[in-house]
C-alpha cells in the first residue's frame, strides 16, 4: 500500500496545494486507491477550477521547493493527514443527490470515452478511436493526479483495444486509407505504451479478469470491517465528534476556515491523550495554511500561530517518540477513533508528514519576504523570524533522524531527510560562517538531543565547514540528481563566500556542472550563476585578478544579469507569470550588482590597460585581444563632451583607468579606493591594499609600455621611487617582461638600469609592410587549401561523369 501511496504522489507533479479536494465515495471503481481518497466533497465548478487553473498557479509552489522531482506540493500531505474515514459514505449520501462527485464525473467521462472507442473500433473508425483514446489518457492522468488510482475499466479497455489491434491482419491494414492507417498506427503505439506503464495491473487482469475486479471490492470491503468493535470507550467522544465534523466539511463550499480553526483550537486544549493531540494538530496545521491560500502571503500573526502549533506538535511527538510516530509511510486510518495498532516495537504509526508542514511554513516565510518591500523595517522585522523557522527545520531534521532508520539515511534512499536537509542548506549557504555559528548556537540552545548526521559543537572553529560538508554529503547520496546538483552548488557558494577560493574552484571544476547546467531547471541555473559570481568575487578578494575576470565575464556584461541571478523577473515582458515571480530570491540573499560591476571593471582595468598600452606599439597580430568590453566603456567615456568629476562607480573606474594610462598610478589608486562599495567586503581594507599593490605593478608595466620609446635607459632606482616599490620588485617585474619578450630591453647590472634596445620600434611604413606580407601569406594559404580540396572535388565529379558516360556507351 505504501508504495502505491508514493506512486500516486510522484505522478502528480502538478499537484495542487490549494484547499479544494476531490472526494470520491465510489471506491470499487478504482484499483487500490483507498487510502488516497479524499474526504472533501466539492461541487462541479471546483473541479475544473482545481484541475486547470489551480494547477497552473500552484506549479510555482512546487517550483519553490526546488525539486520538481519530488513533486508533491507541500499541502499534499496535509490532505493525507486529515483523518481518512472511508466509512463516511452514509453521510455523503445526501450530498450526492445534489451534486455528482468529481470522481464520478471523471469516471463517467472515461466510461463514455471507452464505449465510444469500442463502437468505433468495430466500424474501423480509427481516427475517432485515436481522439477518444487521447481524451481517455488525459482523464487518466487527472484521475491519478487526484489519487484515485487507476480505474479498472481503463485497464480493461486498453487490454481489449490491444487484443483488437492484434486481430487486425496486415491485409486489412493495407486496405485502410492513409489517414486512417496513420491513426491506427498511432493508437497501436499509444496502447503499447500505456500497457507498458501499467504492466503489472494489465498482467493481473489478463490472468483472470473476473477475480481482478472482485479483488478490488474485496479490498474495499476489508477496509470496512475493523471499525467499531475495538473502540475504547475511554476516548474522548466529544472530541471525535467535533473533529469529524470539521474533517467532513473541509473543502466544501461554505466551509468557514476561521470558524473551524477555532473549533480545533478548542479541541487541542480538551485533548486528553497524545494521540488525540497529534491528530488534532495534524488537522489544525493544514487548515491554518488554508487560510493563506488566496493571499499573497500568510499574515505574520497567522504564520506565528502556525509555527507555534508545529512546534507544539514536535514537543508532543518528541515526548512520545517511543509510542507514537507520524510517518509518511504509515497506513492510513480507517477510523479516527481507533488509534493504529502498535507495530513490533510498540510504536503506533500515524500517517502524516511533519517535514511537509515545515516545508510549507518555510515556503510561506519566503513568500512573505518576496512580497515585502526590502527597504522597509517590516522586512527586517520579518527577517528576524528566520531564526524561528531555522530552529523548526532543525527540529524536523532531528525528528526525521529519529524515525527513519540509520541505514536509509546513510544510503540516501530516504527522501524525507533529503528534503529537510536541503531546506536547512537553503538557510545557511549564503551566510558568513560567523553568522551561521550564531544561528546554530541559538537554534541548538533549545534542543536537548544531538543530531546523528552532524553533531553541534560550539567551540569547534571549523564547525560550519563541517556542517556544510556533512549536510551536502547527505544530499550527494540521493539518487535524485536535483538534490545532488543543488547541494553541490550551495556547497560551492558557501566556500566561495567564505573566502576559500581554491576549494570552491576545485569543487566547481570537478562537478562538471558547466556542461549540463543548461538542461537543468531555472532555479538550479540561477543558483549556478550565483555560485559562479560568488567564485569571481572570492577570486578578486584573494587578488586573483585574471580568475576573477574570467568567472565574472559572462554574467557581468549581460544586460539580463538581474534575471540570471534570480534577483528580478524579466523586464522585457510585462506579464511575468506567478512561477517566475516566485523564483525571485528574497532580498537578503541577493548579491550586490554594483559590487559585481565594480569588481569586474576593476579586474578588466588591471588586465586591459597594460595590454592596450602594449598593443599600441607591436604589430604581432596574434597577441591582439579577444572582445574587449572594457575598451568599449572607456571609448564611450572618452567621447563624452563634458567629463565632470566621477559620480557613479563606473565613473570612478573610468577616471582611474585614464589616470593609469597617463602613468599617474597614485591618482588611480585614490579613485579606486574611494569607491564606497568595497565596504561590502568584510575585509575591505585588505582588498583596498590589494588593489593598490596591483595598480602599482600594472602602473609600472603600463608606464614601460607607454613611454619606452622616449628612453634609452631608465634607472631602476628611479622606477622604484616613482612607483614606490622596492627595487627588487621593480627588477623582478622588468625581468619578467624582458623574459616574456614583452619589451625589447635588457637590465644593466653595472649601472642598475633598464636599457632599451633601440631601433626595435617600427615606423609606420614597416608596420604596413609587415601587415601586407601577412595578408599575402593568408591569401596564398587559402588558395592552396582551395586547390587541395576544391580541385579534388572537381576532378572527382568529372571522373564520375566519365564513368557514367562509359557505362551508357557499353550498354548501347
Amino acid at each position, binding site marked *: 500500500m505504501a508504495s502505491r501511496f508514493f506512486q500516486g504522489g510522484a505522478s502528480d507533479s502538478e499537484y495542487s496545494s490549494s484547499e479544494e479536494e476531490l472526494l470520491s465515495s465510489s471506491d470499487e471503481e478504482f484499483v487500490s486507491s483507498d487510502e488516497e481518497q479524499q474526504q472533501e466533497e466539492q461541487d462541479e465548478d471546483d473541479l475544473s477550477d482545481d484541475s486547470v487553473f489551480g494547477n497552473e498557479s500552484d506549479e510555482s509552489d512546487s517550483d519553490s521547493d526546488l525539486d520538481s522531482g519530488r513533486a508533491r506540493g507541500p499541502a499534499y500531505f496535509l490532505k493525507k493527514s486529515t483523518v481518512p474515514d472511508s466509512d463516511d459514505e452514509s453521510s455523503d449520501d445526501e450530498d450526492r443527490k445534489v451534486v455528482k462527485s468529481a470522481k464520478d464525473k471523471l469516471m463517467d467521462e472515461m466510461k463514455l470515452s471507452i464505449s465510444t472507442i469500442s463502437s468505433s473500433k468495430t466500424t474501423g473508425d480509427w481516427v475517432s478511436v485515436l481522439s477518444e483514446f487521447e481524451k481517455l489518457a488525459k482523464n487518466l492522468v487527472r484521475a491519478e493526479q487526484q489519487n484515485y488510482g487507476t480505474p479498472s475499466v481503463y485497464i480493461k479497455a486498453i487490454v481489449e483495444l490491444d487484443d483488437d489491434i492484434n486481430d487486425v491482419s496486415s491485409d486489412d491494414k493495407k486496405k485502410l486509407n492513409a489517414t486512417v492507417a496513420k491513426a491506427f498506427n498511432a493508437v497501436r503505439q499509444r496502447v503499447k505504451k500505456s500497457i507498458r506503464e501499467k504492466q503489472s495491473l494489465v498482467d493481473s487482469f489478463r490472468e483472470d479478469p473476473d477475480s481482478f475486479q472482485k479483488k478490488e471490492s474485496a479490498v474495499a470491503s476489508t477496509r470496512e470491517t475493523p471499525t467499531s468493535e475495538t473502540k475504547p470507550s475511554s476516548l474522548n467522544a466529544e472530541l471525535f465528534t467535533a473533529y469529524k465534523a470539521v474533517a467532513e466539511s473541509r473543502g466544501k463550499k461554505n466551509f468557514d476556515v476561521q470558524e473551524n480553526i477555532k473549533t480545533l483550537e478548542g479541541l487541542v486544549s480538551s485533548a486528553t491523550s497524545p494521540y488525540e493531540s497529534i491528530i488534532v494538530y495534524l488537522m489544525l496545521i493544514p487548515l491554518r495554511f488554508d487560510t493563506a491560500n488566496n493571499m499573497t502571503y500568510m499574515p505574520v500573526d497567522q504564520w506565528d500561530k502556525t509555527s507555534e502549533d508545529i512546534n507544539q506538535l514536535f514537543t508532543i511527538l518528541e515526548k512520545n517518540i517511543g509510542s507514537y510516530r507520524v510517518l509518511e509511510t504509515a497506513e492510513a486510518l480507517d477510523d479516527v477513533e481507533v488509534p493504529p495498532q502498535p507495530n513490533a516495537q510498540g510504536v503506533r504509526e500515524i500517517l502524516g508528514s511533519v517535514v511537509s508542514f515545515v516545508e510549507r511554513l518555510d515556503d510561506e516565510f519566503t513568500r512573505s519576504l518576496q512580497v515585502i518591500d526590502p527597504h522597509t523595517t517590516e522586512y527586517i522585522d520579518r527577517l528576524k523570524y528566520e531564526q524561528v523557522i531555522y530552529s523548526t527545520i532543525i527540529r524536523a531534521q532531528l525528528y526525521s533522524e529519529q524515525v527513519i532508520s540509520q541505514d536509509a539515511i546513510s544510503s540516501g534512499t530516504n527522501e524525507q531527510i533529503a528534503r529537510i536537509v536541503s531546506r536547512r542548506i537553503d538557510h545557511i549557504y549564503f551566510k558568513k560562517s560567523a553568522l551561521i555559528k550564531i544561528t546554530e548556537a541559538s537554534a541548538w540552545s533549545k534542543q536537548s538531543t544531538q543530531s546523528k548526521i552532524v553533531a553541534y559543537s560550539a567551540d569547534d572553529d571549523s564547525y560550519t565547514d563541517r556542517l556544510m560538508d556533512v549536510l551536502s554529503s547527505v544530499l550527494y547520496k540521493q539518487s535524485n540528481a536535483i538534490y545532488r546538483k543543488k547541494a553541490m552548488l550551495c556547497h560551492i557558494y558557501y566556500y566561495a563566500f567564505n573566502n576559500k577560493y581554491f576549494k570552491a574552484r576545485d569543487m566547481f571544476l570537478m562537478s562538471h556542472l558547466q556542461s549540463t547546467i543548461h538542461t537543468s531547471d531555472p532555479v538550479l541555473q540561477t543558483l549556478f550563476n550565483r555560485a559562479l559570481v560568488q567564485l569571481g568575487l572570492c577570486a578578486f578578494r584573494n587578488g586573483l585578478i585574471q580568475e576573477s575576470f574570467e568567472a565574472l565575464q559572462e554574467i557581468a556584461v549581460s544586460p539580463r544579469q538581474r534575471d540570471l541571478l534570480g534577483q528580478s523577473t524579466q523586464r522585457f515582458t510585462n506579464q511575468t507569470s506567478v512561477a517566475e515571480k516566485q523564483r525571485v530570491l528574497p532580498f537578503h540573499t541577493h548579491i550586490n550588482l554594483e559590487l559585481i560591476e565594480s569588481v569586474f571593471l576593476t579586474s578588466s582595468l588591471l588586465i586591459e590597460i597594460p595590454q592596450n598600452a602594449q598593443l599600441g606599439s607591436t604589430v604581432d597580430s596574434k597577441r591582439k585581444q579577444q572582445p574587449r568590453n572594457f575598451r568599449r566603456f572607456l571609448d564611450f567615456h572618452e567621447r563624452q563632451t563634458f567629463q565632470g568629476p566621477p559620480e557613479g562607480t563606473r565613473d570612478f573606474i573610468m577616471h582611474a583607468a585614464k589616470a593609469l594610462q597617463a602613468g599617474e598610478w597614485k591618482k588611480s589608486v585614490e579613485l579606486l579606493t574611494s569607491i564606497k562599495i568595497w565596504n561590502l567586503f568584510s575585509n575591505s581594507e585588505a582588498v583596498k591594499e590589494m588593489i593598490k599593490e596591483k595598480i602599482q605593478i600594472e602602473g609600472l608595466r603600463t608606464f614601460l609600455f607607454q613611454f619606452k620609446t622616449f628612453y634609452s635607459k631608465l634607472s631602476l632606482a628611479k622606477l622604484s621611487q616613482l612607483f614606490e616599490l622596492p627595487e627588487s620588485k621593480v627588477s*623582478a617585474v622588468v625581468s619578467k617582461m624582458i623574459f616574456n619578450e614583452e619589451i625589447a630591453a*635588457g*637590465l*644593466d*647590472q*653595472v649601472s642598475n638600469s633598464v636599457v632599451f634596445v633601440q631601433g626595435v620600434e617600427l615606423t609606420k611604413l614597416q608596420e604596413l609592410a*609587415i601587415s601586407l*606580407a601577412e595578408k599575402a601569406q593568408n591569401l596564398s594559404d587559402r588558395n*592552396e587549401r582551395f*586547390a587541395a580540396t576544391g580541385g579534388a572535388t572537381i576532378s572527382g565529379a568529372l571522373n564520375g561523369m566519365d564513368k557514367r558516360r562509359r557505362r551508357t556507351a557499353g550498354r548501347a
Partner: protein
Amino acid sequence: MSDLTSEELEIARQYDLVQKMIPFFDRHLLYPILESLGDIYDEKTITKLTYELFKDTNMTNFLEEQWKKLDGGSLPAEIVAKKEQKEKEFANLNEATKKVLDVLRQQDVQEHLGQDKNLNREYLEQNHGITEEDIDRLYEFGQFQYNSGDYVMASDLLSNFRALTTNSEKVLNATWGKLACEIISTNWESALKELAKLREVIDTRSFGETLVQLHYRTWIIHWSLFPFFNTDNGLEGLLDLYFSSSYLSTIQAACPWILRYLVAAVVGSESSTKSNLSNPNFQKKLKDLIRIVDQEQYEYNDPLTGFIKALYIDFDFEEANNKLNESLVIFKTDFFLANVSDIFVKNARHLIAEVYCRVHNRIDLNDFSKFLNLSRDDGEKWIANLIKQTKMNAKIDEAAGSVSFEHPSGNVYQHVIEKTKGLSFKANQILATALQQQDQV
C-alpha cells in the same frame, strides 16, 4: 642523529613527506624509507614505528630484533604465538604447493607449457592432476612468504602463479606483489617490467571503476619512485610516466607532493655539460613544469617547487638561490633524491644563470661570481664555459669587470622577406597542379 644543523633539521622536518606518502606504499616498502629517517628523527621513535609497522606481518625474527632494541624485555605473547602459528602455516602451505612446484620443475613439463593459459591448465590437470585450487595455493604461499620477508621466494612463487592462473584479478594482485618483491630486492630492471605490465592493465579504457583506477594510479606513481630514481635512465621514464596526461591529473588531484620529484626529475634529468638544457625537448618539459607548479602553488610548496616559482614566475633570483640552498637539505634527507642531488644543483645553477643572462645586458662579474658561490676567477671561467656551451652572443670585458650580452632582435626586413619568400613559388605550384588536373580531364 646525523650531522645536520638545527636549522637544517627544521627544514627537513617541515618538508618531510613520509607521513603523506605512507598510505600509498606497502608496509614492506616503507621499511627502507623509515630507516632513512634516522637523520631527522629520534632513533628510538623510528625503531618503535618500525616495530608497529611490522607487528601484523609474519616477520617474527625481525620483530624480535626490533623488540630487543626497543625494550629488551621478554617478547610479548602475541609475537610468540604468531611465531608458532607462522611455522605451522608455513609447513601447511609448503606441503600444499610442493606438488605443483615439483611438477613445474620437471624438464618435460616446462617444454610442454606454451602461451595459451587454458591449454596449459588442461595439460597440467590431465597429466599431473594439478587443479585450480592447487594453483591458488601458490598465490597464498607467495603472499605468506612475502609477509615473512622472503621476497625472492615470494617473487618466484608469484611468477609461477601468474603463468598458470586465469583469474585476472588475482593476476593483478600478484603483479603488485611481484613488483614489491623486486623493489625490495632492488632488481630495478624487472621492477620496471612489472610496472609496465601494471600500467598496461590499469590504463585500459575498460578498467572498471574510476575510483579504483585513480587509486591504482597513485600507487603506481609512488611505487615507481623506487626504480626510477635508482636506475640510469630512470628519470626519463619517470618524466614520461608523470607527464602523461592521466597521471599528471592524478598527481594534481590526489598527491601534489609528487611535484617535488617531478621538479627534481626535470631539472636533474639532463646533464648540463652536454649543453642539453637549451634543447627544445627540455624546454618543453620545463614549460609544463612551470605551469603545473604555478597551478598547484596553493596546494603544495616546498623548496624545490619554490625554486621553480622564484626563478620562472617571480623572477626573483635571490629567492631562487635561497630556495636552492634550502633544497640541499631536502636532497640530503629525502630517501629518493640522494642520487640526483649533484646534478640537480649543477643544473639549477645553470638555469638561474641562463635566465639571469637573458634578462641582462650587462652584468658585474664580481657580483655574479658571488651569486654563484664562486671566486672571481672561477666565475670568469664559468661564464666563459657558459658562453661556449650555449653559443650566446656575449663578451667579457675584463678591464671593467663585466660581461655584456648582445640580444639579437628581430629585423623587420628579414621578417618581411621570410614571410613573402615562398609565395611566388607556392603560387606557381598550385597553378601547375590545377593545370595538370585540367589536362587529365
